[in-house]
């Protein structure tokens, strides 16, 4: 399997492989809704090509953090710098729901926002293994297939930064693990920077170089994961880390 061949993979290598990801710098980021602070004083540095997972209880502000980075939320305080100052960064977001346009074929959905790039869209669809569904309507696909189409739609832009807002939350356990492996494989191949928001501690530990815990709008934990990729699950170290993070999240 491809993942095993790069099992000793680290952050620096990811950047070297693709030369593609961007760094991020967040300074004093704050956001409040109706007087209630959702995020406050978030300071964060991300290395290009890093895979970061953001976890936390529901309503802790982890999705807001991601949406702020995506520019979908207006910041109340602080600043977010993505990549070099003054350079345009191609970033794409995958949402909790696939958000496919039901009136466009699978291929046209992938080609959204592109002009006349159907070849590239078909190629992106092939990377997620759905090339034969190109002319189908999205409504006939399963939940996992829809998210794969959404992933292809994000990847066809060859993003430098991929934002994942719990995109696997609604999938069944097996499909979820398949999707995690697919995302990891594509991340290794392409070297983009990835930020994954999830409520699933296992998912975070399986995929990320670094796990961030958001607690009541603040950065509660910044944990580096130095386990070898591809065979993390099932190891003792993995279980120990999971236990450590879970008890922290649950406040024991």
């Amino acid at each position, binding site marked *: 399997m491809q993942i095993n061949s790069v099992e000793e993979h680290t952050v620096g290598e990811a950047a070297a492989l693709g030369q593609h990801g961007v760094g991020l710098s967040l300074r004093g980021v704050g956001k409040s809704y109706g007087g209630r602070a959702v995020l406050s004083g978030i300071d964060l540095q991300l290395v290009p090509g890093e895979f970061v997972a953001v976890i936390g209880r529901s309503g802790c502000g982890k999705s807001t953090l991601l949406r702020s980075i*995506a*520019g*979908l939320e207006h910041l109340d305080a602080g600043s977010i710098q993505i990549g070099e100052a003054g350079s345009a960064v191609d970033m*794409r*977001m995958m*949402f909790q*729901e696939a*958000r496919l*346009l*039901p*009136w*466009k074929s699978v291929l046209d959905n992938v080609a*959204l*926002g592109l002009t006349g790039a159907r070849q590239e869209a078909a190629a992106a669809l092939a990377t997620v293994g759905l090339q034969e569904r190109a002319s189908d*309507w999205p*409504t*006939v696909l399963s939940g996992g297939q829809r998210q794969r189409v959404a992933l292809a*739609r994000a990847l066809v*832009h060859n993003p430098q930064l991929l934002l994942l807002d719990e995109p696997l939350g609604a999938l069944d356990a097996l499909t979820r693990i398949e999707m995690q492996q697919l995302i990891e494989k594509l991340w290794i191949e392409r070297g983009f920077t990835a930020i994954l928001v999830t409520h699933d501690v296992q998912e975070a530990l399986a995929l990320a170089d670094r796990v961030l815990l958001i607690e009541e709008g603040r950065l509660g934990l910044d944990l580096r994961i130095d386990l070898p990729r591809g065979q993390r699950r099932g190891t003792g170290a993995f279980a120990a880390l999971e236990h450590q993070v879970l008890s922290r999240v649950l406040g024991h």
Partner: protein
Amino acid sequence: MAKPSLLAPWALPVALIVFWEVAAQAGWLSSRILPEPWAVAKAFWTLAESGELWSHLRTSLWRATTGFAIGGGLGLLLGLLNGSVKRAETLLDTTLQMIRNIPALALIPLVILWFGIDETAKLFLLAVGVFFPVYLNTFHGIRSADQGLIEMARSYGVTGWPLYRDVILPAALPSILVGVRFSLGLVWVLLIVAETISAQAGIGYMTMNAREFLQTDIVLVGILLYALLGKGADQLSCGLEKYFLRWNPAYR
């Protein structure tokens, strides 16, 4: 040989006609009240042969399509405008809602004073009547377009006219077509009233004229024509739904 499912909807009307014929033959019905179906068929044939029927039909069809085109077209335009532009809604919607609550038929005295009793008066009545179903449904369709899809499309760089064409308009289409279907039914109801005000041609005129001479068979020809035309209009809007909403499993 047609499939039974195609014939099944017509079983009840045919059974009613058979029962009606039997009742007339047995003398349960006076021909003054209800002529037998055979007499109605003969009246239809006579009218068709003399060409009278077709000229009335043509006039009525022309009125219905023109009235529908004017009223429905304006309803669509204003619905799109007010649904998309907040300022237009603020300026126009209150007025339109007040006008909506005036029954179109209550305007007849004014309409006769303004336009006399010629074609303009009839078209005005039809247009006012069909305007609101199309307007309201278009407005509602635009407003209830999935915000998640719009947000997704924006984050993929789709803005302006492409956003409208590829996302907002298709999202509003099911609702717009409900308005169209409702209006197509309403246009015949209004046409009967408009043609009975005072007309020199049209199915309504033919029917009213026949009433003067106690020609119940011709009255029934007119009534049945309205039923068939109404059914035809409904079939047309069903066809439009089937075509434009073929992506939607509910319309397949």
